[in-house]
């Protein structure tokens, strides 16, 4: 997954640079490995780098322009936005799997295939191209006529939202939290969901939307709600926080454990734990303290980095666990190393019992739409049942959320969700 951002000011006197930087910072959770920000004004310039976006501020790089296109990516090999041709730049979240009337050349890179398939530089060329692309993706394009075109593939797999800046301009971003960080205050102009198949166009003279015809099938990514998105965002008009709270409640409803304390694994699982506690009456406590910067450890590309991240992020507070029966809640379990580490630390610090609950179904399969999930032989849930996992991580009990319960928590029918990583059954693109 990737975080993508486009900002369009109609008044050329604005400098968009800082808006772009802070906007990308609001999307940082979608990718911490590389970033890119192209600024379009009288000329086109790009800032890109590895690591966190705030580096731009530290290096005090500032360029002028009133339009920008940016992205943050969790992959060290991916630099976005990238050029489709001399005049067109693209930022894309998700994956294009095939393109109508184009034969995919497997000897070329993904980007080069897109470059080869893409023709022209006009608004219509862009709209036509992406309507021929099959897959699960959201995109933003800027061309050298100062036109910005953004859209969501017809299944709506990846999120995309529109925000406003009064009379001054508009924002397109992966998540609505961006609008709160750089946009207009919410009660006046709430962020709007861009519908699957919808295309949003900004030109120096106009802003309008178009729709791909005949797109009624949906496959909204369910993992956005569990882990990927920020809890202060709305995905498809549904508040992410509400889903996470509901997941915690459902876990509580399905449990009947006599425990002393509920602990959520930071950051994502904290709302699950709070809701679990509110539902059961078992007090929730802060179980961990962090050393250094907050990082999304699960998104680190290699094992050592992940473990470093986990150990620094998750020092167990002894006082909270000593002598206690604990309900420990995490958002997901991929390989199981993190949880094994935590449960071990808790027991070492005197926890009497540790019951692990996962706020998502077991992950058993890859994501064809760009969410970075490890190879299938690394996925603990694909190979072991709940009982065995409990033994491996040293927990007294272990349970997942069911797929049906996840759909219920989201509030979207399961036929309209992409649940591929949990079910190994994928939407037809």
């Amino acid at each position, binding site marked *: 997954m990737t975080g993508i951002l486009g900002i369009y000011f*109609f*008044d050329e*006197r*604005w*400098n968009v*640079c*800082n*808006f772009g930087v*802070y906007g990308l910072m609001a999307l940082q959770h979608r990718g911490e490995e590389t970033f890119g920000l192209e600024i379009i004004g009288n000329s086109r310039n790009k800032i890109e780098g590895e690591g966190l976006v705030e580096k731009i501020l530290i290096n005090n790089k500032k360029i002028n322009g009133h339009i920008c296109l940016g992205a943050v990516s969790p992959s060290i090999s991916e630099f976005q936005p990238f050029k489709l041709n001399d005049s067109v730049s693209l930022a894309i979240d998700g994956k294009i799997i095939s393109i109508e009337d184009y034969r995919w050349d497997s000897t070329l890179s993904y980007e080069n295939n897109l470059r080869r398939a893409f023709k022209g530089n006009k608004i219509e060329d862009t709209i036509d191209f992406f309507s021929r692309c099959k897959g699960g993706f959201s995109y933003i394009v800027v061309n050298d006529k100062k036109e910005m075109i953004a859209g969501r593939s017809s299944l709506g797999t990846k999120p995309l939202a*529109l925000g*406003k800046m*009064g*009379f*001054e*301009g*508009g924002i397109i971003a992966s998540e609505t939290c961006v609008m709160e*960080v*750089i946009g*207009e*205050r919410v*009660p*006046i*102009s*709430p962020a*709007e969901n861009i519908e699957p198949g919808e295309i949003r166009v900004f030109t120096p*003279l*106009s*802003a*309008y*939307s178009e729709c791909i015809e005949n797109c009624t099938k949906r496959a909204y990514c369910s993992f956005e709600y569990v882990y990927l998105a920020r809890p202060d965002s709305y995905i498809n008009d549904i508040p992410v926080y509400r889903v996470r709270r509901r997941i915690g409640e459902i876990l509580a409803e399905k449990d009947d454990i006599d425990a002393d304390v509920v602990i959520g694994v930071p950051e994502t699982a904290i709302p699950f734990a709070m809701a679990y506690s509110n539902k059961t009456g078992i007090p929730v406590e802060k179980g961990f303290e962090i050393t250094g910067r907050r990082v999304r450890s699960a998104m680190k590309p290699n094992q050592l980095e992940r473990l470093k991240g986990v150990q620094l992020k998750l020092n167990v507070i002894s006082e909270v666990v000593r002598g206690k029966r604990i309900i420990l809640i995490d958002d997901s379990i991929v390989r199981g190393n993190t949880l094994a580490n935590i449960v071990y630390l808790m027991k070492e610090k005197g926890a009497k019992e540790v019951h692990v609950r996962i706020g998502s179904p077991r992950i058993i399969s890859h994501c064809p739409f760009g969410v970075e999930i490890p190879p299938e032989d690394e996925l603990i849930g694909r190979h072991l049942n709940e009982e065995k996992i409990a033994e491996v991580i040293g927990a007294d009990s272990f349970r997942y959320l069911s797929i049906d319960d996840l759909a219920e928590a989201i509030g979207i029918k399961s036929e309209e969700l992409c649940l591929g990583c949990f079910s190994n059954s994928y939407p037809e693109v």
Partner: protein
Amino acid sequence: MKVLLVGGAGREHAIAISLAKSSYSPRIYCISEMINIGIKKLVEQSNGEYFRGNINDPNIVSNIAEKIGADFVFIGPEEPNFHGVPDKLEEKGIPCIGANKAVSEIEMSKAHMRDIQWKYKIPGRLWYKKFKTFEEALPYIEEYADSIALKPARQVGGKGVKVIEDIQVYLQDDKKKLKIAHAESIVKEYMKDYDDTEYKLLIEERVWGPEYTLQCFTDGRSILPMPIVQDNKHAFDGDLGMETGGMGSISCGLTLKYGINDERSLLTREEYEKSAEIVKMMVDAIQKETGKKYHGVVAGQMMLTPVWGPTIIEMYSRFGDPEAINVLKALKTDLIEICEAIINEKLNTIKLEFDENAIVVKAVCPEGYPNRRDLAKNHPIKINNDIINNENIIWASVDINNGAIVTGGSRIVECIGIGNNIPEASLKAENLCEKISLEDGWRVFHRSDIGSEKFMERRFSLANLAREIYQYRERKGLLGKRIIWMPGKGLIEVG
């Protein structure tokens, strides 16, 4: 009876329709700079005459009025008021519906309007500062980082206003730069052709809440308020894009209900009455200040804000455009009877009647509007009988050029939809908008969201949010007050 209508935009077409419907069956004459084909048709049908000319020249307008022997003149737009056209007519003994030069200051000088509001302690007054030069404003903008509206201190056709929300400290420097750049262009560009106001630039506190326009007839003694209308200023769907003269307006009953038989409304009855009271106080105050009588239409372009509840954003010395279309469509009382009552200062004998229908007006504009009217101009419009004979299509900025009907650069037409509720009326307006296109294929646009269900829900929830906050302030006795604690300086009360 002969009536001379001054102005040729959508508002004036709506006025002409109301005049034509009158039981007095007047002969309608019109003067405007461009030829509005909608008005032209009514002029011809009533055996009147259409004049092309400068409507801001008191001599030209009054000479025509004399020549045709007009019983009275109805002035549509604001500029003839500012230029003293009503005064000249009065001098010649020709009755006129239109604010005279003195009282139209209420609109022309935005700084003067605020001065009066504060002097007479009229509720709904925003905090403001006025400046004669850019240099005078500069240190002020440098020092105070806040959300503000920068306005030309004079009404310049609704242009030049910029609202900058300045809340995020990390974006403050960029916003300050733009505030400064824009303050400079207000003084040096937008105001460069106007020397009739002392102040050039106005900085006001920025407020939020649902906007509405309350238009009233007045004879200087009493005011008769009409239903409130909500205009929508953003150029594009979803309240996105540049500020325009208005892309569409909605109304239903006095308080802007969701539908004829619906409990939900934008304003409460009390808020409606309070708004009318505020407009009345403004009229009384401007008459007291100038010693002149106000004969015509006055409107408060208002907002329900958390600070005050009903709050004046600007005043109009005439009907709003497109807001005029909503109220005139709903008006059941004979417009000429109302005009006579204004002229004779007997407005208190008139009982205004309006139907309860939901009315949605949508403007169709050529691409380029509002900022690049040069590009939006002179595109031939596709005309057929369906369009030309439709009484729910109001012609706005159009002209006749070598026999062809062409765009004038601003809104082409304003389409009216009428229904039992706003979303239903919106769909009807939508169907009319689809009929408008240009011969040369130049793109036209309109706002499809205005009046949709989602749109209404949003407007109502915004009103509720603002209402909750202002009512809390009311309960605490804090309405309109701003109390700040400055470390080291203590408690400071503003307002």
